[in-house]
């Protein structure tokens, strides 16, 4: 083992582990306007920081290099959960743990609370935020999948104003979103699902707390044994999280029977060829799409009845 003697630790980090090499400036404005103005002034070479559960590892691995970090955590106005009759609006800085425990979220959109509580493990949930997760746009991340499932609208702001983007238009590619460098997600607005519906959320992970290899989220509205509306969102099967429109259309107005559900799951599986993970082959994952979609649909149908 090589011991590196470091004289003044705060100016020279040790090199025995991953460290951020390039120096960067750090700002933590207290007002949203200040942050947006600063971003506008800088234009390119900076990153917004929220919970940091992806950005900081990426910086430590040298995958992201910037000369300035604008930390948003001190901006109080970005941390709120509010609901009206029809909508639940969640501020960008709401942490996963808060989303998981919020009575308002639990009662109005239980699947959102469930998904937030299934992200990684508690030490990550205590810090990660919904805005961060949505902005990163990882193709197999929990909240982007749920935002698609619920047809969420994402509020994007910059110094020049704000705009609302539908979740299905927001995710553009693997970790590519509709966000421009100087824009941030201010809030995410979910329409509270009405009527009698059942839901399910499942994911395939190699071990508890790992990054998911496959996420399936479903909602079924069943009336008198007939499926009135079906929603299926998938994560990890393509370049972005996506809605399985094909199967949704197949299920509409069909009987919520075991046979129909099995057929639907087979269609879902035939629609994708997921990339292999280091541990699992593409074929295995393809088969898992069928298994997980079937389980989710079944669970949704009995929850909805």
């Amino acid at each position: 083992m090589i011991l590196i003697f470091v004289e003044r630790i705060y100016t020279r980090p040790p090199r025995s582990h991953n460290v951020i090499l390039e120096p960067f400036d750090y700002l933590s404005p207290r007002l949203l306007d200040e942050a947006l103005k600063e971003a506008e002034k800088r234009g390119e070479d900076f990153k917004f920081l929220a919970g940091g559960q992806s950005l900081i590892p990426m910086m430590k691995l040298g995958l992201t290099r910037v000369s300035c970090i604008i930390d948003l955590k001190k901006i109080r106005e970005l941390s709120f959960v509010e609901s009206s009759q029809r909508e639940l609006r969640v501020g960008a800085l709401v942490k996963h743990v808060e989303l998981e425990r919020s009575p308002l979220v639990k009662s109005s959109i239980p699947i959102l609370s469930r998904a937030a509580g299934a992200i990684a493990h508690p030490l990550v949930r205590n810090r990660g935020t919904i805005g961060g997760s949505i902005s990163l746009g990882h193709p197999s991340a929990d909240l982007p999948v749920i935002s698609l499932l619920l047809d969420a609208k994402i509020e994007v702001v910059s110094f020049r104003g704000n705009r609302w983007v539908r979740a299905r238009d927001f995710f553009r590619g693997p970790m590519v979103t509709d966000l421009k460098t100087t824009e941030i997600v201010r809030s995410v607005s979910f329409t509270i699902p009405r009527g009698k519906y059942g839901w399910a959320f499942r994911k395939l992970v190699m071990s508890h707390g790992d990054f998911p290899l496959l996420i399936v989220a479903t909602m079924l509205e069943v009336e008198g044994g007939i499926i009135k509306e079906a929603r299926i969102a998938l994560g990890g099967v393509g370049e972005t999280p996506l809605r399985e429109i094909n199967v949704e259309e197949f299920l509409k107005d069909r009987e919520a029977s075991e046979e129909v559900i099995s057929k639907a799951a087979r269609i879902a599986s035939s629609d994708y060829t997921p990339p292999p993970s280091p541990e699992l082959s593409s074929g295995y994952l393809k088969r898992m799409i069928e298994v997980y979609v079937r389980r989710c649909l079944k669970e949704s149908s009995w929850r909805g009845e």
Partner: protein
Amino acid sequence: MGGPVIKEISFKLNGRPVSCPVDTRLTLLDLLRDSFRLKSPKRGCDETVCGACAVLVDGRGICSCTMLAVEVEGSEVVTLEGLGSEEEPNPLQRAFVELDALQCGFCTPGQIIGATSFLLSLGEEEVSEEEVREAMSGNLCRCGCYDNIIKAVIRTAEVVRRGEWKLR
């Protein structure tokens, strides 16, 4: 690219107000271990997987390897050193010892912090084993003492629920 950027930060560490200059590139783990010489947070995986570096920031357990030191400005940080002492271990620490919830001890500071974070969030209801397993899932133990760790946390949760130990 310019030279290092140094920021002056102030925060509360184990109940004491502290201030120091930090390089913006440092993580909280670097700061605690190397500048403050607090050796309870361990560098395990260094990527938010193992929980050995866990510390409490404003009452919640987080991985200090994945937080910039500058981010703690104005926060309250508690490490294992701020909890109980060898002479006077707190009920959680006592339960760990009595129930043999450790072997090599490397992960134990993180386990105690993870458990404390969970205990701080407890409500009135009784806790289930499943709940405790989920709550402790961010802390890995390579010696495999999970069963005893879970038992120790459940026992302490009961103590907290009965109001015999006030954490706050």
